[in-house]
């Protein structure tokens, strides 16, 4: 189990080197330096970019500033997806550091949600946790928690406290041993080229015959194209936390260890780079 703990730790402390540059259309008093930051994969953009905002506000007039938003190569970045998902989906296999453009104007209302304060992120985060627990335990665990336990989960994420978060999150990952897993695996499959934001269905960790479901069986059910047929070139990469787990990895274990703090297993399916 020591290995598992290390995996959790690695997942938690995954970082993405990012270079924030101010959009050139923004009116500045003097030239804005780019700002480099290591973004935690499991967190949310608007939660960790206070410094970035502060940095760019120094060179801007107060009256020109509206709500800050981010964009990567023309795509507005949704703050309510975990940062790791955004990176894997849009920018994996590109040159590091990840270059994000910062905007303070013309907020794209059709693509992004407004994020006026951290309490909005907290509400989103907690609702994800509750949804995941509804799938896993019929909400029993999360409903048994007290208000301060919920707060502890959020504060753990907000302040990047691994031990504080996992002390509470451990309960959400428990399951009765005789059932061999959760009721359903909370997962979301993201694709770059799709109108649907993501695929999310009910999927049990164990088949009716008692066989353990793996990542492969999930994909076969949800997205068969992601599995290469024999002898064929691999067309898609299946990314979780920036890595490609083997298809025979058991789904239950993945859900327990490679889930984001919101308790969902976020899987990105991206086309294999051609070069």
């Amino acid at each position, binding site marked *: 189990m020591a290995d598992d703990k290390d995996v959790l730790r690695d997942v938690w402390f995954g970082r993405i080197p990012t270079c924030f540059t101010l959009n050139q259309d923004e009116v500045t008093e003097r030239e804005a330096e780019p700002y480099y930051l290591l973004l935690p994969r499991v967190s949310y953009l608007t939660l960790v970019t206070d410094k970035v905002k502060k940095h760019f506000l120094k060179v801007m007039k107060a009256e020109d500033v509206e709500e800050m938003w981010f964009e990567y190569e023309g795509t507005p970045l949704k703050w309510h997806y975990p940062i790791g998902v955004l990176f894997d989906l849009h920018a994996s296999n590109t040159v590091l550091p990840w270059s994000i453009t910062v905007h303070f104007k013309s907020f794209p209302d059709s693509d992004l949600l407004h994020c006026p304060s951290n309490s909005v992120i907290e509400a989103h985060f907690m609702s994800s946790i509750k949804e995941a627990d509804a799938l896993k335990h019929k909400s029993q665990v999360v409903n048994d928690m007290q208000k301060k336990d919920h707060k502890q989960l959020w504060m753990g994420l907000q302040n990047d406290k691994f031990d504080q978060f996992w002390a509470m999150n451990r309960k959400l990952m428990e399951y009765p041993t005789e059932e061999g897993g959760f009721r359903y695996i909370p997962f979301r499959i993201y694709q770059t080229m799709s109108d649907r934001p993501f695929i999310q269905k009910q999927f049990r960790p164990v088949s009716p015959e008692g066989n353990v479901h793996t990542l492969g069986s999930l994909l076969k059910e949800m997205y068969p194209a992601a599995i290469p047929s024999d002898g064929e070139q691999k067309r898609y990469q299946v990314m979780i936390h920036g890595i490609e787990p083997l298809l*025979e990895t*058991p789904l239950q274990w993945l859900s327990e260890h490679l889930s984001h703090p919101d308790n969902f297993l976020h899987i990105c399916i991206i086309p294999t780079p051609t070069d």
Partner: protein
Amino acid sequence: MAERRVECTWKRHISEQLKLRDQVQRQAFEEIIHQYNRLLEKSDLQTVLSERYQTDKYDVQRGHEASSGADSNRSEALQQEMAQMRIKHQEELTELHKKRGELAQSVIELNNQIQQKDKEIQSNEAKMLEYQQQITNLEGDCRELRNYLQDLERANQTLKDEYDALQITFSALEEKLRKTTEDNQELVSRWMAEKAQEANRLNAENEKDSRRRQAKLQKELADAAKEPLPIDPDDDIEVLAEDGGKGGGETSPNRPLSRTPSKKISQPPPGGLLDSISNIFGRRTANSFSTSPENTEAPSGGCAEVRVPSTALHVFEAHDGEVNAVRFSPGSRLLATGGMDRRVKLWEVVAGHCEPKGALTGSNAGITSIEFDSAGSYLLAASNDFASRIWTVDDYRLRHTLTGHSGKVLSARFLLDNARIVSGSYDRTLKLWDLRSKVCMKTVFAGSSCNDIVCTEQCVMSGHFDKKVRFWDIRAESIVRELELLGRVTSLDLNHDRTELLTCSRDDLIKIIDLRTNSIRQTFSAQGFKCGADWTRVTFSPDGCYLAGGSADGALYIWNVLTGKVDKTLDRNHNSAINSVSWSPSGAYVASVEKGSKAILWSDM
């Protein structure tokens, strides 16, 4: 084992991949970014610093330009400036010294305060000790009191137990008492039954005795009749005539009762009272109608022929002021009038004239109603002074005053036994009085002011202000029946048989109510007949074939009951509203009294 190895493969794969990822994405950039941010901060700091130096430099340059003009003055100015600065600093120093002194002072003060507080604390501690002591004392007291309370509770418990025991004994005794009482009652009732039987037996014997005696008498009479003696029938007729005369003069059925013992010839012994009464009646009826024995059913009972009045025989001033009540004595020989002058006057009717005979005084207010007892020896008058009074007719002396009503008494009547009186008052009660003990036996709440009362054997009828005639059982206090008329009831009268009730009400209608069917049998009215007051009295003729009533305009109306029409209207002699009318029991006279002071005696002569 193989499985475990497989497990290891994917797990190892994942951790390796994660390591690789971190190497590429994290470790490679961690240091660079850290350093970059430091440099960025440094450069920011530099910018800030350089800006500040810039401004400083500018200021210094400006100062330099200002002073370079006068080089000689410069040192002086500098010196001056120095001196000024020294002075300033010295001032500052003294200021600070002062402050220090102040601070030292405050330190001392604070020390003092601390000492004071210490003292307070000590005293408080002493107090606390004291209170502690008190608390322990109080706790001791408390314990004692609790013990005391427990003792008391125990004592209370014992007392309660004893009380319960006594209670049980008491209830047992009570039960016994009840049983004994029941036994007693049973015995009494048995005794009463025995008594009744005995009385019956006695009655039977008496009857037998009387029959035997009668038979004997008849036999003797028959024997005597057989004997040819011419004088005997005459004697017999004389006896009969004397009897008839008396019967005609005094129609009351109770008369023989009041004067029984000395009076009659073949009186049965007093044991069978009812029997004797019926005997007398039978005998008397037979006597008075001996000429037409088939006519025994006529309603006139024992009265002489009724003559409808047509002329005013005698008009006279009866009272000073309003005359409210008038009544003939049972013998028709006396006329009593009562007025607002608080007197009842007695007049003797002699040959169509009323001779004043005497005045009954004693009332403190106007007289409202007058009644003679059936023997004609007592006179009862109700008065506005809340009382009813009884005088003896022979010596005009006031015998009883019945007080107790809280309003004026509007009517008072003897019951048929002459020993009780019923009175009805404006205070909305009826009272039953016993003349033997002279106390009020019963008071019933009628609910409305009572204007007039009449009585039969068991029933009292009262006419009320709320338009109702109420029927009461003397024994019970409850209303037996009610009958609602259309106007306030002013007057009630009974016919001779007490089978019909005459009512007069303020809707100017006079009605006859059949008491057997309890329904209105006949209604009388007349053009111009108006009921003048709430106590306007109307009357039956003694045979019940006529009604007499006085109107508000002073006219006296006589109705014929058989035809239901007005028989006579006598409107010439009264000048104001007629208050009351009375028909003499002999049937020959009618007397009426009016709101003025007059009374008129009418007859057909």
